[in-house]
């Protein structure tokens, strides 16, 4: 493979690259495990999986500071784990347990960890775009140097919230980075049937937002695009837009057979698996031996298993906890706290 002739990147250390690789495997493993537990009937609600898209959040979040913000979507497990969420509390949230990130009130679509700048996944398509614009405005007004990354899908880009957020972010020159995970489908609607001859980067450029299109199956390429955008945002250069072309290996949610995705298309994208690619690169550069690769896989598996057991053995919330946490100053009936 020509990959073996490729020189290792100078802008990412071996440790960083190994951490990216492990994080991508952790996301994949988390979702594979969650899928099995969902199919076994242990997890309720919806489960929107992102297998195939891991390079986008991991590449992006590698360029972030711990106090930077992200917003995410209904398909958010990968984004959230990439920013630093731990799989034990993630599983616990999926299981609706008190130890979950949201104490069982959010579930898969609403995981947030404000202590790590994860200001919410969002069940409303495009819901995070105005919010991340406001988080960027807030960072700018407070002068903290933080940036806000908005993860969203191609399905958001026909929503009014997308265009309003792009316009305001540009007008206000806020440090918000819009990362579109173009996985080619908004539920079942193919991207090519959602907009006429559209290139998303050009759509962003029409708002005078610097924009690029990267291979979302290449974590290093995503990192570089994010690095440039983050550096620009931190130094007062305003918002950026990154379209990462990627693919959702599975259906919209667990249970969707994805009959609308042509089998040959699915197979072709599977061939381009970003995790396989990065693993191959790491071995090619001498950064990772076969044994280390296997040991990493085992450690990921151990972490996931421990996380799963943590969730399964965590307490179920009291039913009446449904009435808590509606207001800061009042109980749900309006009595002052």
């Amino acid at each position, binding site marked *: 493979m020509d990959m073996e002739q490729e020189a290792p990147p100078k802008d990412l250390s071996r440790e960083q690259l190994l951490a990216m690789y492990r994080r991508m495997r952790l996301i994949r493993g988390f979702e594979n495990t969650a899928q099995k537990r969902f199919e076994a009937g242990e997890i309720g609600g919806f489960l929107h999986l992102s297998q195939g898209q891991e390079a986008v959040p991991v590449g992006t979040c590698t360029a972030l500071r711990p106090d930077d913000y992200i917003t995410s979507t209904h398909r958010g497990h990968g984004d959230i784990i990439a920013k630093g969420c731990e799989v034990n509390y993630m599983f616990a949230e999926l299981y609706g347990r008190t130890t979950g990130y949201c104490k069982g009130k959010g579930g898969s679509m609403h995981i947030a960890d404000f202590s790590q700048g994860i200001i919410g996944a969002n069940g409303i398509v495009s819901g995070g775009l105005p919010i991340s614009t406001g988080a960027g405005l*807030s960072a700018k007004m407070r002068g903290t140097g933080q940036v806000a990354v908005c993860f969203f899908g191609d399905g958001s880009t026909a929503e009014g919230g997308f265009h309003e957020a792009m316009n305001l972010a540009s007008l206000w020159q806020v440090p918000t980075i819009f990362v579109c995970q173009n996985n080619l489908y908004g539920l079942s609607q193919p991207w090519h049937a959602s907009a006429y001859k559209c290139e998303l980067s050009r759509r962003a450029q029409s708002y005078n937002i610097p924009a690029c299109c990267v291979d979302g199956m290449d974590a290093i390429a995503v990192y570089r695009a994010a690095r440039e955008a983050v550096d620009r945002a931190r130094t007062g250069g305003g918002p950026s837009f990154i379209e990462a072309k990627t693919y959702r290996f599975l259906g919209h949610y667990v249970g969707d057979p994805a009959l609308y995705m042509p089998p040959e298309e699915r197979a072709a994208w599977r061939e381009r698996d970003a995790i396989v690619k990065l693993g191959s690169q790491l071995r090619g550069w001498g950064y990772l031996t076969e044994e280390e690769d296997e040991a990493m896989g085992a450690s990921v598996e151990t972490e996931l298993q421990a996380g799963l057991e943590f969730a399964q053995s965590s307490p179920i919330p009291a039913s009446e906890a449904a009435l808590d946490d509606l*207001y800061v100053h009042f109980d749900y009936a309006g009595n002052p706290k």
Partner: protein
Amino acid sequence: MREISFRDALKEALREEMERDERVFLLGEDIADPFGSAYKVTLGLSPIFGTDRVIQTPISELGFTGAAVGAAITGMRPVVELMYIDFSTFAMDALANQAAKMHYMSGGQAKVPMVLRSQGGPGRSSAAQHAQSLEAWFHHVPGLLVAMPSTPYDAKGLLKTAIRLDDPVVFIEQKLLYNMTGPVPEEEYTIPFGVADVKREGSDCTVVATSMAVVKALRAADLLAKEGISLEVVDPRTLFPLDIDTIVASVKKTSRLVISHEAPERGGFAAEVAAQVADKAFGYIDAPIQRVCAPSVPPPFARNMEDYIMVDEHKIADRVRKLVRGEI
């Protein structure tokens, strides 16, 4: 005590809170000078605080309301002005799905200290898309607080509280109230949410009224007083949290209840008050609970038709008269 307008009372609240807390900022359409907002509440604030804190936005209600949510959950305290509450349809996702839900669905992590100020109500031939009274929409959404002041004093005190709360507040003004004047002390004060104000004491019938309907109910009380009928007017001031105890105490005293608001009757706030009073004071009520609200139609344009649907003192007085005489 000095008297100032409802508009100036609101402006003072904004100015004082912006001086007190640098995290407080304003955003909305046309709010900076020289225009100073559609009803001039923010006129004069941008020269004091600059356009970095009095942010005049494009016509982009979802964008800037959603941005306010994002700013609020990351340490700022935005006060959004929505020029007409009718435009809240565009902002509804940011309000109902985002602001209202953030604290709850994050398991108590997120705080959303934002205020959305807007104005509604008929009376200026503004017609179906600029004169609605939409408080029931927001009142119905768990996670939002709703304030509707009827006097300059309440407007200032409630707005200052709204800005200081860590929960999202929908603060609804009425376009005809802005020029009304009333006593407002020079010194600092705030008014807690969830505390009703008995605007007039009486013994024969209670009228629970909101916003402009309070003004009309007080006029009705004057009319009825000449006939020897004593009306008690209770203004909840905040629809949620609701001070039902003060309302129930009043009904126990008068044994009759009329509820009045400018919003359409069907599914309105009055129905909630009626249900709660029926639940908590059934044995004390001597007559059917009555609603004096707009019929469930959009606000029409022509002046005579608008007058026809609007709550006024005569409609309230007529209903009270019938109740007291046992004609209902």
